[in-house]
């Protein structure tokens, strides 16, 4: 397994930040995973939103995530249903439940698709995809 590394299909779309999500993507450029936290009630949201879903406030702070969680679910693309995945199947995409309580879609960079499993502990490992874009990807949590 140690010699398997994730290869990102180059034609996958890059994230186009919105006004609400720009701080999330900007922090990633500095290799920090941050989560939107309501400045009033402390509720954490992901993806970032315009208004707190718990208390309705519209002011937020950005919480540094520990970057750890577990695989909540995953899919494996076997047929290149989209042109961007041609030549890159089987391709695994995971939904990670972060310890802060929110879910994030990502890829595992050290786990071949056939070994991905629900419940696997993972931690963030940033992937620089060029053009000034860094994505939050994950690997098996060390020591687990």
């Amino acid at each position, binding site marked *: 397994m140690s010699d398997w590394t994730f290869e990102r*299909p180059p034609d*996958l*779309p*890059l*994230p*186009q*930040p*919105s006004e609400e*999500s720009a701080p999330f*993507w900007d922090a990633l450029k500095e290799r920090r995973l941050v989560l939107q936290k309501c400045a009033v009630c402390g509720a954490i949201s*992901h*993806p970032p939103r315009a208004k707190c879903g718990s208390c309705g406030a519209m002011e937020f702070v950005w919480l540094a995530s520990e970057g750890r969680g577990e695989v*909540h*679910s*995953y*899919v*494996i*693309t*076997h*047929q290149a*249903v*989209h*042109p*961007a*995945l041609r030549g890159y199947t*089987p*391709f695994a*995409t995971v*939904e990670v439940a972060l310890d802060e309580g929110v879910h*994030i*879609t*990502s*890829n595992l960079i050290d786990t071949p698709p056939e070994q991905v499993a*629900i419940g696997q502990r993972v931690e963030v490992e940033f992937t620089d*995809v060029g053009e000034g874009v860094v*994505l939050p990807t994950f690997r098996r949590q060390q020591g687990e």
Partner: protein
Amino acid sequence: MQSIPVYALAALPPSQRTRTPMSFSNAVTIAGIGETDYSRDSGRTELALSLQAIGAALDDAGIAAAEVDGLMKWFVDTSSEAEVAVNLGIPDLAWFGEINQAGNVGAPLVAHAAAAIHAGLANTIVIYRGVNGRSGRRYGRGDVTGQGGRGAGAFTEPFGLLTPQHGLAMSTRRRMFETGVTSRQFGQQAVIQRKHANRNPRATFHDRPLTLEDHQESRLIVDPFHLFDCCLESDGGGALVLTRPELARERRPGRPLALIRAAAQSGPGQSSPVHRTAARLFAMAGLERSDIDVVQIYDHFGPFVLFALEDYGFVEDAGDFVEDSGTMWDSGKLPVNTSGGHLSEVYLQGMNHLIEGVRQARGESTSQVPNARLSFVDTGIGTGAVILERSDA
């Protein structure tokens, strides 16, 4: 005094009601249904498909195009109401509109049209669609739903979730993990729907049987979805004519009517979970789940038929239910997707489910459930549903 929504009022026993529940319950009927041939390459424009389906639906209802004063369409369709109105020769288009979601708008459109007719804003509304969903823009490739990394897509598409099957496979996997429902059970429903399609001459897979082994051995598209968990991609059109029962009866005397007993829509995503939609719908109808005779469920992916059966409250364990053939048209306790559905009839995104729901209420299905009176149609896994009621002339 706090204002009580009509659907909540309807749920109260009569002695506790401060006013009579008002709704469009049974005040509007789907008086006409129409469809084109279904294919992989129609050779016609989407406008031509829409007009052909509308013509068939108006003929079915016995209503002239000039009598139509409302048009509604699927948001993603390319044939605008204005274009259709001009082509039909509609002299006074009093009501038109769309609902901004992808495919799952069928029942919500019925709800809006029925409310408009009930309120007197229009008399006769046609809901239509015509799509080259196989030879043109294909849903299965993300042609319609792709966001180019924008909006919510910024958080999913860069990681390879690019098509409808991707996000839905993710939630399916988790549900399999949590409830123990299996791919074989998904296959059981696919096989049952294929049997229904084999009885339906309009169905794309009319001539092709399917076994559970075929399903299990079919290639994985996006694991856990096998090929036969995925809907067809189709070229075709369909249309519904909504009007008042009086006009419908006058034009087609002696034919049973499909009255709209209740219709409900709900918000996209998690903003209105299916159990709330179901509660509103059944309260408006004044019915229990057990009153329903036949069910159509939006099956972009077959596993969601099982999930919807549980989430709407029809059965507790849908995996067991389909293994016992509970959804078969003739022997099942609750027949489901009696035309073959999206998996085996055609992928018209709920339009074909609405058409089949009307057929069941009128007694005209090729897999007719005997004595069916209450016909339930979901058009988007909880994002909207209608209950149709047979009314004999």
